[in-house]
């Protein structure tokens, strides 16, 4: 899988997305059992959720960016399987599934009462259509996750069989993401403006530049959501977002952008503050193809020159978690690797001296994202104390940064949050902007994808330790899942580990 690991296409989006993903986790158990569409306890209550990055389009099959699945996935579109709060893959539109002994054939039993918002019933034929369409019509690079599929066919209206070319743990996991979204054959004509899905909400209205409105799907096949109407309201300015909650314009800040301002809410019993983890690793990336980084002592020196605790305190108000590799604590193979390269200024200086990097000038090309700009200034200061010279160069995000740093790898150092789930392999790759070419790592990753669950966990642990010990980059911290909401609101996720912001479990007590 070579999926893009960068979340977001707008300045604030990178951070924004993180939070959204978190919400999905809680949804797990809601799927499935209830078949009768009873009345919803929420009646005609409505809710307004403040988010930071408005989608540029509603079509995630051709438009990159985290904001679209954040809003639509799980809420308007559903997939066959989804992740529960603990990261386990659980049923959604597929009631159950079996895997063949060679781990190449998956047979899904589908629910029989799901309907698209265009009134067409959901059948195995739609599933086949959706899976094949990823290969044929999608243009975003994420579609490569479906390359491993050899064939998808409908055994019956409620039974789907998917055959892979080789065993892949990654495939089923990716089916929980946007890649796995189920479309109606007759509902893909205007994806950019009119999404059609089977989800508990239907798309009602998009006031561009302002908000997206969802309404409860009264024909939903599963448990109907509490709220009759939910508005996703988009804010570019973090302070405006906070003010909107303070003055009652919105009920939830889906993702806090200004952690320093959190004190306004923590002391106030009108609000609840949720703090958990996300998949968003804030990476200080090295351009490993450059000669200066070919010496591991340079990379190691940089890692040890950074006082991660002080950095986190300074640029993210101490919220967030320190990590030592590209693995969030919610992944099954998570290990504490923060001690692989502890802060040690003297050691860092001598390493940089030894490698000859001391005194050299490095370009730190930062995307114009608030956390990157903030952390960049701390990184510059800390690296300069260790004997490097650092020049900060702002690159407008997304357009300029994506071209200069991401595509052309014209940079020495950069900072960005990689918010895709399970993105270690994709980020540390010779073709990626990190230009990290390491056959040993690739071996571990291949073994993890092909092996059984124990082998997967074991090999992923090795991979995580490998990049940490090799200092393929420096993990500054893990973005926190920070949500502030009205006190009486329930169903908010502790950790944000999926691509979407789950609105379906929200309720008022």
């Amino acid at each position, binding site marked *: 899988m070579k999926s893009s690991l960068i979340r977001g296409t707008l300045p604030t989006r990178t951070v924004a997305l993180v939070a959204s993903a978190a919400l999905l986790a809680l949804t797990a158990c809601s799927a499935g059992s209830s078949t009768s569409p009873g009345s919803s306890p929420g009646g005609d209550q409505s809710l307004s959720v403040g988010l930071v990055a408005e989608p540029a389009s509603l079509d995630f099959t051709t*438009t990159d960016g985290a904001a679209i699945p954040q809003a639509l996935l799980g809420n308007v579109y559903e997939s066959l399987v989804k992740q529960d709060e603990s990261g386990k893959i659980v049923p959604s539109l597929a009631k159950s599934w079996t895997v063949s002994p060679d781990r190449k054939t998956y047979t899904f039993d589908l629910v029989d009462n799901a309907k698209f918002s265009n009134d067409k019933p959901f059948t195995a034929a739609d599933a086949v259509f959706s899976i094949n369409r990823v290969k044929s019509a999608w243009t975003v*690079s994420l579609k490569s996750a479906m390359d491993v599929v050899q064939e998808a066919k409908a055994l019956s209206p409620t039974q789907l069989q998917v055959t892979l070319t080789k065993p892949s743990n990654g495939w089923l996991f990716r089916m929980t993401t946007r890649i796995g979204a189920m479309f109606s054959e007759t509902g893909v004509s205007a994806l*950019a403006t009119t999404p059609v899905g089977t989800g508990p909400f239907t798309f009602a209205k998009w006031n561009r*530049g*302002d908000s997206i409105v969802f309404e409860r799907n009264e024909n939903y096949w599963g448990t109907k959501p509490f709220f009759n109407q939910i508005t996703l309201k988009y804010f*570019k300015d973090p302070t405006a977002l906070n003010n909107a909650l303070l003055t009652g314009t919105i009920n939830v800040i889906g993702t806090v952008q200004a952690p320093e301002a959190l004190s306004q809410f923590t002391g106030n019993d009108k609000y609840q503050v949720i703090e958990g983890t996300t998949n968003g690793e804030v990476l200080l990336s090295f351009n490993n193809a450059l000669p200066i980084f070919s010496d591991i002592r340079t990379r190691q020196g940089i890692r040890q020159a950074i006082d991660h605790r002080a950095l986190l305190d300074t640029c993210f108000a101490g919220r967030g978690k320190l990590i030592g590799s590209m693995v969030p604590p919610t992944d099954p193979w998570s290990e504490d690797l923060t001690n692989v390269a502890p802060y040690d200024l003297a050691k860092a200086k001598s390493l940089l001296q030894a490698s000859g990097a001391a005194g050299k000038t490095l370009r730190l090309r930062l995307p114009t994202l608030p956390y990157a700009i903030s952390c960049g200034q701390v990184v510059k200061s800390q690296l300069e104390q260790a004997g490097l010279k650092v020049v900060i160069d702002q690159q407008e995000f*997304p357009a*300029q940064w994506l071209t200069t740093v991401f595509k052309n790898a014209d940079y020495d150092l950069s900072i960005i949050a990689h918010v895709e789930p399970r993105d270690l392999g994709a980020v540390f790759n010779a073709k990626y902007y990190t230009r990290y070419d390491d056959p040993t790592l690739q071996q571990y990753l291949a073994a993890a994808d092909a092996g059984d669950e124990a082998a997967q966990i074991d090999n992923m642990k090795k991979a995580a330790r490998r990049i940490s010990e090799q200092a393929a980059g420096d993990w500054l911290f893990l973005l926190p899942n920070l949500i502030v909401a009205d006190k009486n609101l329930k169903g908010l996720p502790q950790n944000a580990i999926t691509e979407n912001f789950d609105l379906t479990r929200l309720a008022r007590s």
Partner: protein
Amino acid sequence: MIIRLIERTAVLLVSLVVSSVLVFAFMAVLPGDPARVALGVNASDEAVAELRRQFGLGRPLPTQYFDWLGGLLRGDFGTSYVSKAEIGPQVFDRFQVTLWLVLAGMVIALVVAAPAGTVMAARHRKVSGLALSAISQLGVAVPAFLAGILLIMLFAVKLGWLPANGWTPPAQDPGMFVRQLILPALSLGLVQGAVLTRYVRSAVLDVLREDYLRTARAKGLRPFPALWRHGIRNAAVPVVTVLGLQLATLLIGAVVVERVFVIPGLGSLLLDGVSNRDLLLVQDVVMVLVVAVLVVNFLVDLLYVALDPRLRVGSR
């Protein structure tokens, strides 16, 4: 008068054509392939090529220019590379929003500036005039977004009288529309009003020195009626110029206030367009802004003629 009208119209048309070339040329030199940016970095080369073909990005620039211009003239703003949505309706909606905001701001500015400037001029040696002068100097020195932030802190967060931000179209909920409009319009209006006050003051001071005002007083008009009947129209000429310029500047200048108050206006659309490299959208928005300014200037010119009969004869 007719000659003047024809001349002005000709100038307007030439300006429109020249600026459309400028805007198009400027956008053409923007670095980055719009198709690739629209599709994201991970897009395949085929997909990029397809999009380029779809939007005709490979054609010679003059062809692209004339197609674009022709579209604009027909009211067809084209389709966004990024959102695949029609640009026209978006620009129209956003323009309306900004227009509401700017007009409300200008009304406040005028309501503040006209009396304040007049009093400052009439009492320019007295304490009240000097005090007003000092206040207006301070008003001019405060950035509009800072004024907005302070207004929010006070009236929305601390006192809770008005919403901190947001926008509701007037047709949807007129009450909410007004409540949400007050603070942003105030932050634009007070700052612009302070600027305008100084022009009103100077215009009124000029008029107060005019002989015809003395003639009016000699006729038996008391000072204020004399100023009202004989001064306002004359003082209005320079003030209208400034007003026109302010209106033009504010269409884009409001973007800062739009940001603070989360208002989906034209300026915000432009900023989004720029960061998404939604090239055609940016091009359209810039063009709309430029056309608006040119048309406002044109109208100001006509207004001069209405205000000052001396301009009605001959060309100048």
